[in-house]
C-alpha cells in the first residue's frame, strides 16, 4: 500500500477575468504514488501547483476531481484516519501568540488525542534545538525558531507520513542542518517524507525519487539518480570578461560573469570554448563539472527534454 497516493487529481479555480464559467487548472490530472519509507521530492517553479497538491493531501482544500489517500485512507471520506497518519509543516510562518512553545506543543498533541506525550515533546524540543526556548512565548521567537516550532508541531503526534512544504525557505544554515539531520533520522526509522523545496541541492542530497510539476502537470517522475543520468552529463562553467553574443548566450545559463553551458561530451565542450574564443570574449576561469539537479530542473522546465 502506498504511503501517499494521488489518483488523477485535478483542481480548477474560476478565472477572475474572462468569460463566465472559465476555469484555470492549478492541477491537471496528477497521478503519483509515494511508497512507505521513501524520501520523496516534489519540485517545480512558483505557481506549479505544489502547495495546492499538498493542501488537498492535508484536507485544507478539496480536489475538483480525483482521489487522494494516505496509507489507504481517503483524505475526504476518512479524513480523521488520514490526518492521524499525516504531519504537515505548512509553508507560511504562522503561530498562536497566546501560548509558549511547550503549551503550543501540548495543545497540538491534545488535538490528536495523544496522552502522556511529555517524553516525545522533550525529545522534539531537544532534537530541534528548542530546549531553552520551551517556556518562551511564540511572539518572542525569531523567524528561524518559529519555523522549528512548526516542524515540532507537525511531528508531535508521531505521524508515519511527514510532509514538509518548503521548510527551509529563508532560514539559516544551522537550522537547515539540524532539520535535515532530524528528518533523515526519522526517515531511516521508517517515516515517509514528502518534501517540496526551492533548494535543489537539498532535494538532490536527500530525495530518493523526485517528481517535477509544471503548470499543474507532472513533467518528470523518476529516481533522482536516473534524472541526473538522463540530463546533460557535464557543465562547462566559465568566468568571462565582456559580453557573449546573443546566439551563444541563448544556449547558456548566465549569472553575471558566470556562464554555464550544458554539454554531453568533450567535443561539445571544445566547440563551446571555440565559439567563445571566436567571439573575442576573454575567459578568466574554466571549470568542467558534473551536471546537478539544478541543470536537470532547468532542462525539464525549459521543455528542452
Amino acid at each position: 500500500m502506498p504511503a501517499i497516493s494521488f489518483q488523477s487529481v485535478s483542481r480548477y479555480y474560476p478565472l477572475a477575468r474572462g468569460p463566465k464559467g472559465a476555469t484555470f487548472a492549478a492541477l491537471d490530472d496528477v497521478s503519483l504514488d509515494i511508497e512507505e519509507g521513501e524520501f520523496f521530492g516534489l519540485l517545480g517553479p512558483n505557481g506549479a501547483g505544489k502547495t495546492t497538491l499538498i493542501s488537498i493531501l492535508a484536507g485544507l482544500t478539496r480536489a475538483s476531481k480525483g482521489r487522494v489517500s494516505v496509507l489507504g485512507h481517503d483524505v475526504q471520506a476518512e479524513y480523521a484516519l488520514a490526518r492521524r497518519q499525516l504531519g504537515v509543516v505548512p509553508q507560511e510562518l504562522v503561530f498562536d501568540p497566546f501560548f509558549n512553545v511547550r503549551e503550543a506543543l501540548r495543545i497540538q498533541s491534545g488535538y490528536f488525542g495523544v496522552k502522556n506525550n511529555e517524553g516525545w515533546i522533550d525529545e522534539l524540543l531537544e532534537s530541534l534545538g528548542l530546549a531553552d526556548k520551551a517556556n518562551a512565548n511564540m511572539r518572542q521567537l525569531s523567524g528561524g525558531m518559529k519555523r522549528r516550532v512548526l516542524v515540532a508541531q507537525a511531528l508531535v503526534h508521531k505521524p508515519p507520513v511527514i510532509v514538509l512544504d518548503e521548510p527551509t525557505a529563508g532560514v539559516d544554515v544551522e537550522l537547515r542542518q539540524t532539520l535535515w539531520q532530524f528528518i533523515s533520522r526519522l526517515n531511516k526509522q521508517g517515516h515517509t517524507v514528502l518534501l517540496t523545496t526551492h533548494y535543489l541541492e537539498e532535494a538532490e542530497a536527500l530525495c530518493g525519487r523526485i517528481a517535477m510539476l509544471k503548470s499543474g502537470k507532472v513533467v518528470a517522475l523518476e529516481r533522482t539518480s536516473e534524472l541526473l543520468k538522463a540530463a546533460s552529463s557535464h557543465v562547462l562553467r566559465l568566468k568571462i570578461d565582456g559580453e557573449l553574443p546573443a546566439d551563444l548566450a541563448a544556449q547558456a545559463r548566465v549569472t553575471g560573469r558566470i556562464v554555464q553551458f550544458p554539454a554531453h561530451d568533450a567535443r561539445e565542450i571544445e566547440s563551446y570554448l571555440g565559439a567563445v574564443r571566436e567571439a573575442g570574449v576573454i575567459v578568466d576561469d574554466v571549470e568542467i563539472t558534473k551536471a546537478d539537479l539544478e541543470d536537470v530542473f532547468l532542462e525539464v522546465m525549459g521543455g528542452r527534454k
Partner: protein
Amino acid sequence: MTGWQTLLYKEVLRFWKVSFQTIAAPVLTAVLYLLIFGHVLEDHVKVYDRISYTAFLVPGLVMMSLLQNAFANSSSSLIQSKIMGNLVFLLLTPLSHWAWYLAYVGSSVLRGLVVGTGVFLVTFASTDLTIQAPLWILVFAVMGAALLGSLGLIAGLWADKFDQLAAFQNFIIMPMTFLSGVFYSIHSLPAFWQGVSHLNPFFYMIDGFRYGFFGVSDVSPWLSLGIVGVALLCVGSLAVHLLRVGYKIRG
C-alpha cells in the same frame, strides 16, 4: 484529554490569559451602566408596580454582558486565527465539526457565565434583588450564551476581516440586545413597539432570565424557553453545517 476537550481548554485559556480585557472590562462597563441609569431613573420608574428600577436593571445588565461576551468569544477567536493563519493547526487535525462546535460554543458559554457572574457579584449588593427561581436563571444563562456563541461562530466563519465582524456586532447584536428590554419592561412601550419587541429573540432570553429573579415577567417563561430553544436549534444547526462543509476555511 480528548481532542475536543483540548480545543475547549485552549479556547478557555485564550480568553483567561487576557482576562483584564475579556472579563474585567465588560464587568466595569456594566457597573457604569448601572451607576448612570440607576442614578437617573431610580426615583422615577417602578417596574411591575413593586420592583425598583435598579433591581430591575441588574438582571438585564447581567444577561446583556453575558450574551455580548459569549458572541465576542467565538467570533473574535475564529477571526483572529483566520487572519493570523494559525487556524491551520486546527484544520490539520482529525477533529470533527462537532468537536469544533462543542469547543468553540462551550468556551463562549463559559466566558459568558464568568462575565455574567462578575457583573452580578459587583452589582447585586447595591440593590434589593431577590432570587425566586434559580434554575430558570441558569437555564436561560446557558442557553442564551450557547445561542450567542453559535452566532459568533457563524459570524467568525463568515467575516474575512475585523471590519465585517464589527459590523455584525454593531448593527445586529448591539441593537437587538439594547432593544430587548434590558433597560425597560416592554409593557411600558406603545402597543406597536411591544409587537416588534416580540419578534426579537433576545427579548425572550432576557425576559425569561429576569423571571428567575422576580417570579414575574412580560411573557411566560415557558414560552421564552420554547422560543430560545428553537432559535438555538436553528442557529446551532447552521453553525454545525458550516463547520461540516468547511465554509470559508477549507478551499
